[in-house]
């Protein structure tokens, strides 16, 4: 009995501690004066519109969104052929390619940041551009859609493919009528994950941006260092809400436990 109560308390405590930052940031964003107090003194929502009025924040927001939209698309576009290749042929070349896709994400991001910065600034001489960050995010986060699309491919019944082929469907037809529809939900989930992680990523954007391209997290830290305004907290709150919306959608339209590797007894 006591153990059951302790367990309950532990679970609740974990949820409270994990959500503490959300409450603090939300609380601070409501301060009426330009000071950081928690709990807030005098409630006001006036800092939220300011995010869309000041060019610093608006620029950072557009930059971050652009990077996330195109970076996630790039990651999925690399991940789909890689996963499909390995699933279809199982040759060494495909395994090596898949392994190469796993490496960036298993290294600390500072390595990708450093490698890409040296590549662009020392070799190409084309630093500080938004394209650099798009490509870096696409390559660094390719692991996420790759693993998810592989999960989707594994769930396809190979007998179904054989049946389609014996009935005369060409390789292209099999891909577009059987494989792609089965994999599309996983592609969307992978896209969503990369999108959210890319929006929140700091160090790669910081290295490659070179103070010329500034993303939201970089701008948040810069404005925290140069003095404080509740606008910063408002931006953070909008960020968190974005993540909530995206992941809720993923959970709504696909099997989230399965996506995260859970094993369900039904299968």
């Amino acid at each position, binding site marked *: 009995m006591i153990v059951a109560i302790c367990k309950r308390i532990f679970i609740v405590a974990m949820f409270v501690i994990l959500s503490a930052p959300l409450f603090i*940031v939300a609380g601070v964003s409501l301060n009426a004066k330009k000071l950081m107090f928690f709990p807030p003194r005098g409630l006001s929502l006036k800092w939220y519109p300011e995010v869309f009025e000041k060019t610093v924040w608006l620029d950072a927001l557009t930059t971050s969104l652009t990077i996330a939209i195109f970076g996630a698309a790039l990651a999925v576009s690399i991940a789909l052929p890689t996963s499909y290749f390995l699933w279809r042929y199982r040759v060494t070349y495909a395994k090596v390619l898949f392994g190469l896709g796993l490496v960036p994400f298993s290294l600390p991001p*500072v*390595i990708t940041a*450093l490698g890409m910065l*040296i590549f662009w600034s020392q070799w190409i001489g084309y630093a500080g551009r938004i394209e650099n960050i798009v490509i870096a995010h*696409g390559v660094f986060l390719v692991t996420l859609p790759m693993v998810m699309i592989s999960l989707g491919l594994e769930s396809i019944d190979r007998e179904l493919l054989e049946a389609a082929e014996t009935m005369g469907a060409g390789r292209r037809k099999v891909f577009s009528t059987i494989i792609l529809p089965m994999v599309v939900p996983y592609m969307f989930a992978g896209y969503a994950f990369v999108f959210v992680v890319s929006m929140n990523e*700091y*160090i790669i954007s910081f290295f490659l941006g070179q103070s010329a391209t500034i993303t939201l997290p970089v701008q948040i830290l810069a404005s925290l260092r140069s003095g404080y305004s509740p606008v910063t907290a408002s931006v*953070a709150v909008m960020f968190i809400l974005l993540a909530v919306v995206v992941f809720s959608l993923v959970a709504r339209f696909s099997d989230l436990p399965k996506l995260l590797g859970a094993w369900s007894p039904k299968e």
Partner: protein
Amino acid sequence: MTVAGTIVSDDAAQRRGLIQRVFVGGIVDPLRRYPLGLYPTIMLGVFFFVPFLIMIDISFWHRVESRTYERAFELTHYARFFSPLFTAHLWVSIEFSALSSAFCLVVAVPFTFFLSRFRRKPQVVALVFVLCVLSLSEVIIAYSWSVLLSRVAGIPKLLFDIGLLDSPDSWFPGFWAVLCGLTYFNVPLAILVLYPQSTRLDRELTEAAQTLGASPLITFWTVVIPLLWKAILACFILLFVFTMGAFVTPLWLGEPENTMYAQLIANQMLSRNNAPFAAALGVFLVIVTLALVAITFWLGKERSAVAGGRR
């Protein structure tokens, strides 16, 4: 003379032949056979593998002055590594990574176990919550911990108001503030890494232990932990690697003496314009990380072999 000449040219021709064979056999032929792999190979090759090779190359270059380097092969940058300043910061990083990963597992292992036993609906909601926490920017986490530990608004003030503390002192910046931030940062990742294995735990085993009279605590300690320990070890290594790359947390919550490895790299690359030394630091971090990841893979193989045998 002529004999020696032919031998040398033979040698060179042989070498050229070997390179050609490796290139054609290793890259051109597979690509011709599987055009599907062309696009991913180009993208990952050009934007990950090539930068990586350039990084290794530059780590041997000679630094003439700020921003000016010369192609060379010198080990000076690696030698600098053994200076006490850098070993001290390397040690700080290792200490933070090990401690925060260990603390994180202490709470994440039981939590993940309980989470995997939730009914489906609450489980999905909890997973969405964990994913949201995971995706929180390091910037937001570090900032909110600085508020939580501050004198005016955080826990110290709360404890002072209750009467548990004599004076409301700020708990940041410092060692413990960084450790709190890093541990928090690691918890959602640990939950997601341990989750698949937790869901695969056989319910009958824990139920059997409890029917035989073991208390839930003893069951957890003697049944769940031994079944999960390899996953836990693999998770520890993953968290360790992840934390070695922490940048914003020690920057915002720590004092100068809490400087971690990623900050050293950023400092050399961005502030001091010493790309070769930054590259050398990066290469070292890659070697350590890959060694640790290799151990994790090996553990994973053992684990799946055991699971396969049981089925």
